[in-house]
């Protein structure tokens, strides 16, 4: 299906795909803590995510609050849309 999605949704989907890889590797490493290859991949995807989130937050405000990400003025945490309102 071809739908037009927003630039915000596009960036979010890219972040989702990298972060999902990180979740999957995280759970794997929990039960395979000595796996060198998985650990290297985890650290690499963490770096990619950091960059992607920095780019996203410049346009759309913080992805995380409570001191994890800074915000522009005025406080952008409360900006809509919230995740359930977005067309993906």
């Amino acid at each position, binding site marked *: 299906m071809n739908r037009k999605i927003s630039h915000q949704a596009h960036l979010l989907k890219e972040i989702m795909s990298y972060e999902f890889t990180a*979740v*999957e590797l995280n759970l794997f490493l*929990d039960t395979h803590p000595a796996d060198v290859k998985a650990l290297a991949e985890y650290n690499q995807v963490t770096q990619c995510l950091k960059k992607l989130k920095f780019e996203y937050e410049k346009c759309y405000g913080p992805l995380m609050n409570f001191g994890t990400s800074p915000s522009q003025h005025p406080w952008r945490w409360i900006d809509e849309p919230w995740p359930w309102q977005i067309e*993906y």
Partner: protein
Amino acid sequence: MWIYEKKLEYPVRVSGPNPRLAKIVLEQYGGSDGEAAAANRYLTQRYTMPTGMAKGVLTDIGTEELAHWEMIATLFYKLMKGVTPSQAKAAGLEAYYANHGKDVFLQNAGGVPFTAAYFATKGDPVANLVEDMAAEEKARATYENILNLSDDPCVNDTLKFLREREVVHFQRFGEVLDNVQTHLNCKKVF
């Protein structure tokens, strides 16, 4: 503590309003094998686990289940968007609508409110972990039941993602069970 991340774990899309399907997906919101039961089960059992691995996996999978719980709420929210009261009535949501309007409520597809009786803590890590493995299989089976009842390919995409996660969680819990049993056996020998 927990920190909210202002994103879903995986995209949630629907083809259009569908109150019948909205009601069905509530099974995974507040049902016995749904995401709220899963998250609370693991996050409640983790405190007395005997190994760092077991504490870590219960924390991480419990947290991921919270993200799945949010995805199910998003499915319900989107499937109810634009639904009129008469459409809700025609889909069998008359009683639901009378109480909750179009808000999501922590209940199963049959209208039974969520309860802590859906999960256990037994004071025994092996008993707890075996329950967790069964819970993952029951959640997978529930997703398959819902897929059999669904008529929306966009919703199916989300449901299939969630079903796959249960398979991975089952695998991880099996590894944790091995780890805990080895730990307990070593203690006995000593």
